[in-house]
C-alpha cells in the first residue's frame, strides 16, 4: 500500500497521544519533560509531512518551521531542566505530587 499523508498524520496523532498520556499520568517531573519533547516531535513530523505532500514544497516552509520549532524546543528543554534543578533544590524531590505550593 502506498504511504500517504494520512499515514503520517495518524502516526503523528498516535505519538502525540502517547506523549500526552505520559505527561498527564506519570509523576516523575523529568519524564513529564520527556513527554513534552515527544509531543513537540510529533508536531514536527506533522509539519514535515504536510510539507512533503503539500502543493508547494519548493518554498521550504516545512523544514523552516521545523527548524524554528526545534530551536524553541531546545530552549524549552534547557530552561525546563534548569527549573527542575531549581525545584529539586527547593523541594528536595522530583515527584510532581509533592510540588504543590501553588495550592496555598
Amino acid at each position, binding site marked *: 500500500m502506498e504511504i500517504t499523508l494520512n499515514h503520517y498524520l495518524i502516526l503523528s496523532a498516535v505519538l502525540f497521544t502517547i506523549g*500526552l498520556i505520559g*505527561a*498527564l499520568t506519570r509523576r516523575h517531573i523529568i519524564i513529564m519533560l520527556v513527554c513534552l519533547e515527544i509531543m513537540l516531535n510529533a508536531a514536527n513530523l506533522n509539519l514535515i509531512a504536510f510539507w512533503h505532500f503539500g502543493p508547494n514544497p519548493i518554498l521550504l516552509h516545512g523544514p523552516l518551521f521545523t527548524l524554528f520549532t526545534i530551536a524553541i524546543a531546545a530552549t524549552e528543554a534547557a530552561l525546563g531542566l534548569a527549573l527542575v534543578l531549581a525545584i529539586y533544590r527547593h523541594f528536595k524531590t522530583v515527584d*510532581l505530587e509533592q*510540588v504543590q505550593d*501553588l*495550592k*496555598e
Partner: protein
Amino acid sequence: MNLFNFTDSVGWLMWVPICPLIAGVFLALLKPSGRVSAFVAIAALAVSLILSLKAFAMTWGHEAQIETHNFTWMHIGGVDLEFGMVLNALTGSMLAMVSLIGLLIFIYSWSYMSHDDRMGRFFCYLSIFMVGMLGLVVANSLLLFFMFWEIVGLASYLLIGFWFQKPSAAAAAKKAFITTRIGDLGFLIGLLWAFKATGTFLLFDNGSGILETTQIAALAASENVMFGMNTAGAIALFLFIGAIGKSGQLPLHVWLPDAMEGPTPVSALIHAATMVAAGVFLVARAFPLFIADLAMLEVVAWFGAFTTLFAALVAVGQYDIKRILAYSTVSQLGLMMVGLGAGGLALKEGGISIGMFHLLTHAFFKALLFLGAGSIIHGCNDEQDVRLMGGVFSKMKISSIAYLAGTIALCAFPFTSGYFSKDQILLSAWTASGPIFWISAIASLLTAFYMTRQCCYVFLGKYRGKGHVHESSPIMTVPLVILAVFAVALGYVSEHFYHILDYLSGVHVHQHESIVVIISWIIALGGIGLGLLVYARAKLGIDETDPVKKVFPVPYRWLENRLYADEFYEATAFKLWDVLAILITVLEAIMNQLVDFVTVVVRNIGSFFLNTIDKRVIDEVSFDGTCSRIYNSSQINKLIQNGFLQGYLRLLTGGAVLIGILLIVFTR
C-alpha cells in the same frame, strides 16, 4: 555595498561615520587610558574629516548633482528595507562643518577633560555622537536617518548626564531625552506615513525617492488630508515635530538650557553647533516636502519667529554664562527656521541656502562662544555666574579676544559671518511676510543687546569672584583662535568669493533690498550701542540690581524666570496628572460607598428573611441541605484548583477534546 571603491561610487561615504564608530567600539571594549583614548578618537575623527573634505570638494561646483549609493538592508516579507548614502551640496557642506568643528572640539576637550578620571568614557561617548551625527548627514533613507537621529539622542543623553553624580545633571539628561522623544515620536509617525504613501524609505533613488519630483507630485496631489494640507505637507508637519524636539523650538525648547549641565565641550559640540542643528538639517533635507505645501512653510517660519523672539527675551534676564548662550542658541535656531520657512516662501528651493548658511556660520561662532565660555569658566575657577566675573579681559587675552570675535559675529556686526547670514534671513523675511520680519528684527536687536550685556559683565570692571584668573593651556586656546578666524571671515569669504548661497541649494539665489540692509546695520550697531549705554558704566555684581531691572522690575523678573515655561508645564501637564489622580481617588471613594451600601441593603434583606420568614423551614429543611450541597460542590472545586500541575493539564486536554468534538460536529 561597495565600501572600498573610492572613485566612482559614493559607498565610501559610509566610512565617514564608520571611523568614529571603530574608535568608539575600540574605546568601549578595550578601555585604554584617557590619553590613549583621546588620541584614538581624535585620529579617527581626523580620518573622517579628510573624507568629509573630499566629499565637500566633490560637490563643489556640482551643486545640482545628487549622487547616491543604495543597497538593500533586509527583506521582511515582501518589503525591502533599503539604506543608502547620498552626496550633494547639503551633505558635503554639513559633513565638512560637523567634522571640522568636531575635531577642534575633540582637541579642546583633550585638555578640558584631562583631570577627569573617566576621560576614556567621555571620548567614547563623543565618538558615538559623531557616528550618529555624521551618519544622519550622509543617510539617504529616512529610516537610516531616524536610526542615526536616535543614536545622536542617546549620545546627547549620555553626555549631558556625564557627571551623573550631580543630581541636576542626571535630571537634565532625563529631561532632554524625554522632551526630544516627544518630537521623535512625530518624526517616527512622519517617516512611517511617508513609507506608507510612497513605498520606499529612500530619499533619492533615480527619480523614485521620496524627495524626487514624481513622488512629491503624487504626494502633493491629494488635497486636504489634515488641517487643509496635502499629504506632503502632513508628512512634513510630522517631520517638523521631530525637528522641533531636536532643535529646541518653542514648545519643546525647555531641555536645551538645562542641557548645559554637561561638560562645556559637549555644550559646544552638541547643544550649539551640531546636534541641535540636526532638526534644521532635517527640514533642509526634506525641503521638497515642505515646498510642496506653502502652508507648511508658514508654520515653520512662524514657529521659528516666536522661538527666536522668546529666547532672545529670556536671554536678557539670565546670569549664567552658559545659560545665556543656550538661550541664544535657541533663538538662533529659531532664526534658522525663519530662514528656511520665509526663504522657502520667497525663493522656493533657495530657502535651503538661507537656513543652511546661517546654520554653518552659527555653528562656528557658537562653538567658539561655548569653548570661549568654557575657557573663561576654567580660568575663573569653575564659576559660571557672570555677576561673579568681570575684568577677565586683561587676564585672559587670547580667550577674551576670541570670545569677542564670536560675540560680534553673533551680534551680526557688519562684515562678520553672522551679518551675512542673518542679512539673508531678514531679506527673505522681508519678502515673505511683514510681521515675521519685524519679529526677527527685534530678536536680532535683543541678541546684540544681551551679548553686549554679557560681555560687559564678564570683561569690564574688576574681578569679583574668588581666586585668581588664569589663561588656559594652548591646547584649549588654539582651537579658539582657529574658530575665531572662521567666525569672523567665513561669511565674507564664502559670500563674496565663492557664492555659497548658490552652492548650498543648487539654484541661483540673489536678493537685495537696501532698506533691509540699512535696518540690519541699525539693529546690530543699535543693539551693541544700547548695551554699552546701559551696562558699560553701571555697577555690576551679585549684590547689585541689574540696570534694566531698575527700570522695568516686573517684566525683568519674568525674564529671569524664563517666562515661566517650566512652570507652565508644571501647571498644565503635571496638573493633569494630579487631577487624574484626584479623580481616581474620588471614584474609588464612590465605589467604596456603593459597595458599603449594597452590603447594608443585602444584610438588611437577609435579616428580614431571617427574622420574618419561618426560621425553622430554612434552618432544618433548606439550610442544612444547601450547606451540604455547597460543601460538596466546594470539594469538586477544590479538586480543580489544587496546585497539582497535571490536574491543570488534564483540564486543558479536556478542553481541547471538547473543541475537537465541536469541530467534528459542526464541520460535518
